[in-house]
């Protein structure tokens, strides 16, 4: 290591300071590249001298050997949390629909979706809420908000779609139950249309029960809230993008329309007044 440093040090010195070495002439002014090279060389010499000290390499190797252990520890912490999350998700998914009964929508496991939302809010949303810095911080914030509202919309839509699908699932179950007795008595309908009509009637009944339940009204309200929040975030985000083009934004147009609306109203009132006099 020491001999290598000495060799490359001499070579670099020759390149940096060729005039003095070759001709013995007056020292010329150094260029920026040469200065930078010299500084790097000095740093290298310093490091290599330090490494040449007895025991330094052993200490370094010890540190290098310890690196995988540190990385494993870091990764382990991350993976532990990830597996814990996965377990929570699996439990959540498992619970969905476990406690629902035919024509009953009061005992829905809405909590399952709440947990799902909480996991997103606690584990992922934080990354989108990291304070943004610098000149473009407002634009970055809007982009993060757009992504956040999109994710929340996905969760809300999943919950809503789950509710909408639930009567389907239940209606098939009820149809099977309803057919048990005729099957025992050997009075099963021969026409497939008959089965369809029975199922449709059951399905309709289930939907009516669902739509009258407070759970549905709340979920509908929550879904609409998520859609609206997403639309607002999307508009804010695209508004910035549109500002770079020679087109007015929605806000510009709304201001203009409002002014136009009030002006037209005043003109009509004045027209009416003048026609009456």
């Amino acid at each position: 290591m020491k001999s290598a440093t000495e060799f490359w040090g001499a070579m670099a010195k020759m390149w940096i300071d060729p005039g003095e070495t070759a001709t013995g002439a007056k020292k010329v002014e150094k260029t920026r590249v040469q200065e930078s090279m010299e500084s790097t060389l000095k740093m290298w010499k310093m490091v290599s001298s330090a490494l040449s000290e007895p025991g330094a390499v052993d200490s370094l190797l010890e540190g290098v050997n310890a690196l995988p252990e540190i990385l494993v520890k870091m990764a382990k912490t991350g993976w532990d949390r990830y597996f814990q999350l996965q377990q929570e998700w699996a439990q959540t998914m498992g619970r969905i629909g476990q406690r629902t009964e035919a024509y009953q929508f009061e005992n829905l496991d809405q909590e399952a979706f709440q947990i799902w939302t909480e996991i997103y809010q606690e584990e992922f949303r934080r990354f989108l809420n990291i304070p943004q810095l610098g000149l473009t911080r407002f634009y970055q914030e809007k982009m993060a908000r757009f992504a956040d509202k999109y994710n929340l919309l996905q969760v809300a839509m999943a919950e809503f779609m789950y509710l909408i699908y639930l009567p389907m699932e239940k209606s098939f179950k009820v149809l099977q139950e309803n057919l048990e007795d005729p099957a025992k008595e050997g009075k099963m309908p021969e026409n497939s249309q008959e089965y369809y009509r029975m199922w449709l009637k059951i399905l309709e009944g289930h939907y009516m029960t669902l739509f009258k339940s407070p759970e549905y009204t709340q979920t509908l309200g929550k879904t609409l809230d998520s859609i609206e929040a997403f639309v607002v975030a999307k508009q804010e985000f695209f508004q910035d993008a549109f500002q770079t083009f020679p087109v007015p934004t929605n806000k510009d147009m709304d201001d203009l329309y409002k002014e136009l609306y009030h002006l037209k109203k005043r003109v009509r009132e004045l027209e009416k007044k003048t026609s009456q006099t």
Partner: protein
Amino acid sequence: MTRPKIPVDLILSKLAEDADKVQARAQKASDILLGQLNTEIATTPCEIVYEEDRVKLKHYKPVLPPEELLGTPLLVVYALINRETMLDLQPGRSVVQRLLQNGIDLYMMDWGYPTRKDRYLTIDDHVNGYMDNVVDFIRRTQNLSKINLMGICMGGTFCVMYSALHPEKIKNLITTVTPTNFDTDQGLLHIWMKDIDVDRMVDTFGNMPGDLMNFGFLLLNPARLMIDKYVGFLENMDKKDFVENFIRMEKWIFDSPDVPGETFRQFVKDCYGENLLIQNKMVVGGQKVDLQKITMPVLNFYGKYDHLVPPGACELLTSKVGSKDKEDVCLDTGHIGIYVSSKSQREFAPKIVRWLNERE
């Protein structure tokens, strides 16, 4: 050998038979769908006689000679949701044609398609603005002091407000599937509307998107409107008449203009939220809407099986107006059936004509 309790053999043979029929039907259907179809709606000849912003006034060409026409013209005001073309869906199933054939001089309000520009328009702008201008136009051109007014659904609610605010201009008032009492839990719409955050909705969207409302209407009965309806279509798609009528209906249902934001906000808050109209507490254009000022004859139609505007939302009106000549007519049908079902076609328009004739 005993017969199995579930007749699997019979079910399978029936299915096989059905499969043959389906194949034949699909072949015929493809010929129909790929061929020439007449799916035009609102084909009854009319003239646009007045225009203001997006609003147009249609005047239908009378089919009877002038001496056989009823002296007082009838102005029909449709809702801001969906389009007035529903009254003229197809020949033989058209309220417009029935009225014309029975001597009614017919005008129809076409609200057009509101754009973002119209988001600030309020109920006052529609009732005391557009409607009043149209009524004045008809009175002026026909040289009459009063005209007959008929409202449909939300358009009926506007007509009730108008008749209370301008009773001197209306001779007879007809309301059809018109919500005036919003404090009822009979219809799902009434339940849902109480929970929506209308301020946030209007602030977000500007106008209330027609497609979003249509999606809401489909959710009122998904089993029938999203499944059974199309199963019915598949079963009948080898019949040209059926296909044409089905497509006409689809054209009308999904032709949904947006509703001006401020109008929607006020309608949901004052009507669905506070139920102000039926209590004589609603304020439009700075004036209180007093139903006692409706002193002209009133004919009030509603559908027994209407899931959008249930009887409970309609039937209170006649007991609250100031008129002595008033009548409720409950038909055994739903919200749209009143105008399009064959049975109602025989009852609805003829009843209107008789009633107006008696009061001419």
